[in-house]
């Protein structure tokens, strides 16, 4: 057996030596990727889930992508259109993309402007249930000026026109393949949804839903030397910890996505020396939302609505600030996130131009300061150690989704709050219920039948304009709008609304950054929420894998064409 192994090693070494001499397409064998949440379909328009968006990004591609720094990279186009190069109209009402010449679909046919137009039609068709429809909002027309030119027109001036067809969420579909799958017929096209024809480096060989995907190198890929790998095996299922083990400890796999594992567990696995962790920070922020309305069950239908009135204690700014001051974000990060997080006081944590430092006081825990703040505001400790004023006790229901890291954070926060005379009752709800948005369920994060709730949210791409509209007065969830609305804290400030309105009319980037910072600072200092951790993405990669550029702004697998086996 041992001799056989040596023989095998020798053969591999010989092959490797041969490979480095003739680097080219398909010379590096198979790359094995592990997604512990299995992939359900390869059509991101029908799913919207991150796992589907990432896995399909190896096959179908958008016109432009974000690189790991968050800047736009022309992908299927010759350049990024701007006002300067004439690609964006001076009135900001249209954008014109010039397609790269000579790009072919994996079946050998030409990639043309018609396919781009079709993709827009596909996603905006009624009854199709397209998950990425919001990205095409405000677009009145997409037309093929000629075979290589696409013009996108907007109903109103769009100062950030790079929404549609940019990023892994909106890849271009082939018209020839999907033309009979529009609207209500979309879900029925199983073979197309499971094997989209694309322009990307790989083509689907076999797709087993919720199990495993086998891809082979695209023979018609535009770069003749890429991809270096001949095939990709993307296995799904299991849990994050065992996925980490398969890369870091047993070395069976090359890449494992989304390592939501306690830092100390990863630490021991890394000792095997078979791989490392890579991380990237996008825009995810773990925050505690503060309910500005009264969640008292006695209010019945008016519970947690603006009509139900203000929150009896959280409407006091001093209480909101004290809750934030009492938290030690460094310890939360150390215990639950490690390389996958950093403490933050911002709700817009990235890209760099938008990072504000105004509220950085929150980075340092200040129990004494919080106690003083509450004393001064008239909240007096009772015999049970809990503060109260006019018969209102500082005792809160603090809810989140079921997840070991979140429950750990809850316990830590509860302890710190007890040191400032605030009692917290902890509650956790299954994620599919909490985030499910069923209007009949009392446990959703939209209904917010609690005083405080913790979860993560983020925005797509690099522009936060749309994200900041979530805190507008008219986005407050209520029975009238079926609890649909993203303003969970029920925050409402006309000044804030004004800033956001101005942002939508501002084109100058420096001016935009200023407004974003202003809006961001306002939300945190007024206490719409308590930002805790700027969360990154962590993946495990094998020591034998080269070329991975971890990206939080686009698909993590965005540059898989450049990956290769380390020799």
């Amino acid at each position, binding site marked *: 057996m041992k001799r056989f192994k040596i023989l095998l090693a020798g053969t591999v070494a010989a092959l490797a030596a041969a490979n480095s001499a003739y680097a080219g397409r398909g010379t590096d064998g198979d790359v094995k990727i592990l997604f512990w949440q299995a992939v359900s379909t390869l059509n991101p328009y029908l799913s919207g889930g991150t796992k589907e968006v990432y896995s399909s990004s190896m096959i179908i591609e958008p016109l432009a992508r974000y690189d790991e720094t968050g800047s736009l990279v022309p992908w299927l186009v010759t350049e990024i259109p701007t006002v300067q190069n004439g690609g964006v109209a001076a009135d900001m009402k249209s954008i014109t993309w010039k397609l790269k010449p000579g790009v072919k679909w994996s079946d050998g046919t030409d990639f043309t402007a018609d396919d781009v137009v079709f993709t827009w039609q596909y996603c905006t068709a009624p009854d*199709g249930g397209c998950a990425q429809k919001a990205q095409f909002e405000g677009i009145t027309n997409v037309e093929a000026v000629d075979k290589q030119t696409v013009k996108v027109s907007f109903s109103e001036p769009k100062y950030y026109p790079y929404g549609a067809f940019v990023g892994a969420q909106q890849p271009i579909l082939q018209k020839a393949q999907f033309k009979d799958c529009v609207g209500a017929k*979309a879900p029925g096209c199983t073979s197309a949804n499971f094997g989209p024809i694309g322009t990307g480096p790989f083509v689907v060989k076999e797709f087993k839903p919720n199990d495993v995907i086998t891809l082979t190198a695209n023979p018609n890929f535009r770069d003749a030397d890429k991809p270096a790998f001949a095939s990709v095996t993307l296995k*799904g*299922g299991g849990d994050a910890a065992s996925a980490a*083990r398969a890369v870091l400890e047993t070395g069976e796999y090359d890449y494992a996505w989304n390592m939501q594992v306690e830092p100390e567990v990863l630490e021991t696995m890394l000792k095997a020396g078979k791989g490392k962790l890579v991380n990237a920070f996008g825009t995810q922020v773990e925050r505690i939302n503060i309910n500005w309305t009264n969640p008292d069950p006695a209010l019945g239908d008016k519970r947690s609505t603006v009509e139900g009135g203000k929150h009896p204690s959280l409407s006091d700014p001093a209480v909101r600030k004290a809750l934030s001051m009492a938290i030690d974000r460094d310890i939360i990060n150390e215990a639950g996130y490690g390389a996958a997080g950093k403490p933050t006081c911002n709700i817009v944590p990235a890209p760099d131009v938008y990072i504000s430092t105004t509220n950085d006081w929150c980075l340092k825990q200040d129990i004494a300061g919080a106690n003083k703040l509450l004393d001064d505001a008239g909240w007096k400790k009772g015999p049970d150690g809990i503060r109260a004023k006019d018969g209102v006790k500082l005792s809160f229901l603090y809810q989140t989704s079921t997840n070991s890291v979140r429950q750990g954070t809850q316990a830590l926060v509860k302890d710190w709050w007890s040191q400032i005379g605030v009692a917290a009752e902890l509650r956790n709800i299954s994620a599919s219920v909490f*985030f*499910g948005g069923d209007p009949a369920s009392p446990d959703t994060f939209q209904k917010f039948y609690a005083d405080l709730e913790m979860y993560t949210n983020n925005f797509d791409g690099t522009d936060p304009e749309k994200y900041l509209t979530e805190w507008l007065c008219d986005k407050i969830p209520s029975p009238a709008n079926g609890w649909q609305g993203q303003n969970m804290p029920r925050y409402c400030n006309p000044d804030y609304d004004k800033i956001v309105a101005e942002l939508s009319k501002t084109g100058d980037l420096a001016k935009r950054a200023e407004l974003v910072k202003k809006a961001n600072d306002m939300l945190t200092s007024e206490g719409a929420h308590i930002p805790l951790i700027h969360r990154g993405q962590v993946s495990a990669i094998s020591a034998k894998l080269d070329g991975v550029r971890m990206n939080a702004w686009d698909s993590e697998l965005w540059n898989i064409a450049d990956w290769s086996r380390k020799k």
Partner: protein
Amino acid sequence: MFTYTIRRLMFAVPTLLVISFVIFALLDLAPNDPLGDLPLTIPPEVREQIRAAMGLDQPFFIRYLHWMHQFFVNEPLNIFEQLTGITIGDGERMRVLSWATRSPVVDLIVQRLPQTLWVVGMAYVFGILIAIPVGVISAYRQYSIFDQIGTFVTMVGYSVPTFFTGVLLIVIFSSWLQWFPSIYDTNLVVNDWSSFVLQIKQMVLPVTVLALYNASQIARFVRASMLDNLSQDYVRTARAKGVKEKAVLLVHVLRNSLIPVVTVIALGVPTIFSGAIITEQIFRVNGLGQLLITAVQGADIPLVQTLTFIFAVLIVLFNLIADVLYGILDPRIRYD
């Protein structure tokens, strides 16, 4: 016996209809949402449209009737068409579609069956093969060292959960010794000796975990049943007649003791199909158990509904088979 079987089968139809309704109602009442896993960046109005595309905007009874029609009419017709090649009507009919994958549920089940039958089925067979000799010897030599050890091992095997034994085996045999893979490759095609060896290697760990559990359960049954019979009068009679001890044990006692055991084994067969949710998840066998649990987590109601209903059918069916077998094996029992 035949009329009894027919009667039971007839009675099974309303039972199953009630079961299907109860499952559908329970799933509908459960506060779960198929869009719960989607990123929060997808706005509410788009979510509403996705729900409508899934048919979730229709009232409960309409959805139930849709499912009934798809499952009891369209799916059988489709199977018939595929088997015979004859197209009935225009051949275009709505099949039961999973919400997560947007593909026909029946195709998913067919795709998952092989690995579940291989791994869970094998574990069941091995479990039985281990359990019977262990149970027999334990009972025959009650309170001997073998019995004590056997009792200890079966107790441990029965009470230690598979999510512990599974991970323990991975840490020892995959991480440390590196003998067996920790991840099951469902793409592996067995067509020569080396791929057969690979298949055996990847089956060893999950089958061991499940076989230990199954064997523990059945061995306790065999032992108890053997002990019951060993003290019976007919055993004494056989021994008094001078029948050899081997024949007493294996012919007289074992045969009689196996009657209840066979029933237990028959009743356990449906659990093979429902898969071993935890073990499949740990080793990424991705069979029916994993299909069911991901569907439950993702609130993929058509898939959960269809799978649980098929399990219900199997359970009703194997209950009947167990009853009939009992009648065949035990001459004292007559149904007519």
